[in-house]
C-alpha cells in the first residue's frame, strides 16, 4: 500500500520541524510585512525628492542620519521606502504569475495526462516548443512589441512557464490514473470530472505546490531583470530591478544605491528557496537533503 500522506497534520508537522524552512518562513513573513505594511506606518513618500539631501549615506556610516536609514539617491529620495515599495511590484508579479501559470498548467497537464491520445500529443508538443525557446528571450521579444505593463509582464512570464507545471501535473495524473481506486471509481460509472476532482487532483497538488514555490523565486529574478533593462513596470513606480539600474550609474559616489536593492532581492529569493526546500522535504521525505 502507498501510504498516501493525508493532507492533514502530518506534512504540516514535518514542515514546522524543518529548521531552515521555519527560518525561511519567518524571513518571508518579515519581508511581506516590510513591503506591504511598513510603508503605511512610515508614511514616507517614495517619490518625494529633496535636493538638499542628495546622496546621503546609510545611517551606520559617517554623515548618515536616522531620517533616511538606508540613505538617499541622486534626487534625495529615501532609499528605504523605495526598496520597500519596490518589493510590492516584485511580490505581486510573482504571485500573479504563479496563479496564472499554475492554472493553465494544471488544466492542460490534467487534460494531457487523463485523456492521453491526441490531446496529450498536441499539448505536449506545443509544450516542447515553449521549452525550446529560452524564457528570457521569449519574454523580452513580446515585451519589446507590446510594451511593458504589469499585465503584459505577468502574462508573458506565465506564458513562458506554464509548460513546467503542465509536465509535472501530467506525470502525477498519469501515475494516479493507474491506481486501483480510480479504476474502481470508473467501474461504478463515476463521471470523469468527479474522478478528477476527488481522486486525481489531491495527488497532483503537492508536487505543484513545491514547484510553484521554486518557480516563484525565479519570477522575482526575471521581473527584476526586465526592470533592470528598462522593460519592467514603467516609472514612477519603483521596482527592485529599476533601483539597481539607477544605482548602477552611481557606483563611484553612492555604493548603497546598487547594493541594497540587490540584497533585498537576495533575501526574498533566499526565504522562498528555504520554504521550497522545507515543503519538498515535508511532502516527500525520501528526497530529503543532507541538511538538518
Amino acid at each position, binding site marked *: 500500500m502507498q501510504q498516501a500522506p493525508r493532507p492533514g497534520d502530518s506534512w504540516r508537522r514535518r514542515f514546522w520541524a524543518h529548521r531552515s524552512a521555519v527560518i525561511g518562513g519567518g524571513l518571508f513573513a518579515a519581508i511581506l510585512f516590510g513591503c506591504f505594511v511598513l510603508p503605511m506606518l512610515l508614511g514616507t513618500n517614495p517619490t518625494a525628492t529633496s535636493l538638499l539631501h542628495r546622496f546621503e549615506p546609510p545611517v551606520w556610516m559617517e554623515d548618515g542620519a536616522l531620517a533616511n536609514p538606508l540613505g538617499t539617491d541622486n534626487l534625495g529620495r529615501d532609499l528605504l521606502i523605495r526598496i520597500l515599495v519596490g518589493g510590492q511590484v516584485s511580490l505581486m508579479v510573482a504571485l500573479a504569475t504563479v496563479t496564472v501559470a499554475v492554472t493553465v498548467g494544471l488544466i492542460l497537464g490534467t487534460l494531457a495526462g487523463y485523456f492521453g491520445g491526441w490531446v496529450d500529443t498536441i499539448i505536449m*508538443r506545443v509544450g*516542447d*516548443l515553449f521549452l*525550446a*525557446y*529560452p*524564457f*528570457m*528571450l*521569449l519574454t*523580452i*521579444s*513580446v515585451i*519589446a*512589441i*507590446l510594451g511593458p505593463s504589469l499585465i503584459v509582464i505577468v502574462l508573458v512570464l506565465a506564458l513562458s512557464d506554464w509548460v513546467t507545471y503542465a509536465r509535472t501535473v501530467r506525470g502525477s495524473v498519469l501515475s494516479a490514473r493507474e491506481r486501483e481506486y480510480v479504476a474502481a471509481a470508473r467501474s461504478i460509472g463515476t463521471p470523469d470530472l468527479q474522478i478528477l476532482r476527488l481522486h486525481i487532483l489531491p495527488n497532483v497538488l503537492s508536487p505543484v505546490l513545491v514547484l510553484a514555490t521554486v518557480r516563484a*523565486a525565479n519570477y522575482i*529574478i526575471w521581473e*527584476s*531583470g526586465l526592470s*533592470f*533593462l*528598462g*522593460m519592467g513596470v514603467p516609472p514612477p513606480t519603483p521596482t527592485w530591478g529599476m533601483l*539597481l539600474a539607477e*544605482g*548602477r550609474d552611481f*557606483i*563611484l559616489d553612492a*555604493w548603497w544605491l*546598487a*547594493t541594497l*536593492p*540587490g540584497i533585498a*532581492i*537576495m*533575501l526574498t*529569493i*533566499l526565504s522562498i*528557496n*528555504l520554504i521550497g526546500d522545507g515543503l519538498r522535504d515535508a511532502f516527500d521525505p525520501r528526497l530529503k*537533503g*543532507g*541538511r*538538518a
Partner: protein
Amino acid sequence: MSRYLLRRLLHAVLIVAGISVISFFFLHLTGDPVGLILPQDATREQIETLRRDLLLDEPIHVQYLHFVASALQGDMGRSIYTREPVLGLILERLPATLELALTALVLSLIIAIPMGVIAALRRGGWLDTISMTLALFGLSMPHFWLGIMLIMLFSVQLNWLPTSGRGTWEQLIMPSVALGASLVALFARLTRSAMLEVLGQDYVRTARAKGLTETVVVGKHALRNALIPLVTVAAMEFGFLLGGAVIIETVFAWPGVGRLIVQSILDRDYPVVQAAVMMLAIVFVVVNLVVDLLYTWLDPNISLGRTDQ
C-alpha cells in the same frame, strides 16, 4: 541508431519551424507592424518601402512563407535604420555571446563538480554544510546584481580588472563569473544528489568490496555515472545562459547578440530583435540536439527506442 538520429533531427527541425512561427507572429501581434516599427514622423517613402519589404498587402500565410523562404536563403530582413542585412549584424556578434556563454558554462562546471562530489562524500559534515549554503546563496542572487558588485569590488575599489569591453582574458573574467554563478549553485546541488544516489548502488558496493581504492571507486565508478544527468541539465541551462547574456552583456558592455537585442529594442529596430531572438533560439535547439546525441554515446544503457530490448 540511425533511426533515432533521424527522428531526433526531424524533431529539431519541427521545433525550429515552430520557433519561426512564433517569431514571425510576434511582429504581427498587434495588427499592422508598420506603425510599431517606424517612428511617428516616418516619411511616406519609408512607410512604402517597409510595406513592400514586409509584403504587407499579401495574406498573412503568404507573408510567412515568404519570410521562411528568404530566411532559408540567408536573408532575414534589414535593419530599419542602417539598412544593413540583419543576418550579418547577428553573425558578427554571435561569437562574442558564445564565448561568454561557453566560458560561463565551463567555469561553473569546473567549480561545481568538485563542490558537489566533496559535499556528497562528506555528507552532513562541515564541508557539505558550507558548500550547500554557498549554493543556496548563489541560487538566490540575481546575476546582474552580482555583476555590478564585482565591478564595484574588482574595478572600482581594487582596480584589478577592466569594467567592460571584450578582447583580453581579463575582460572575460567578471562577465562569465557573474553569468555562471547561479549555475555553480545548481550544478553543485545536482552533482551532490546524483553522487549520493550512485554511491548507494550495488556496483559501487561491489567495487569497494573488491578492495579498489576510494579514488578509483569515486572517480571511475561513481562520478562517471553521476555526471550523466548533469549533461542534460547543462544543455537545458544553455538557454538560460543565452537569455542571461542579454542582461550581463548590457552590464559589462560586452559586444554580443544580447546587447544587440537590447539596443535594437530601445531603437525600436524590430526586424533585428526578431531575427536575433530567433537565432539564439536556434543555437539553443542545435546545442540540445548535439548533447542528446552525445548522451547516447556517454550512456550506452539508454535504449534509444530500439525494439530489441
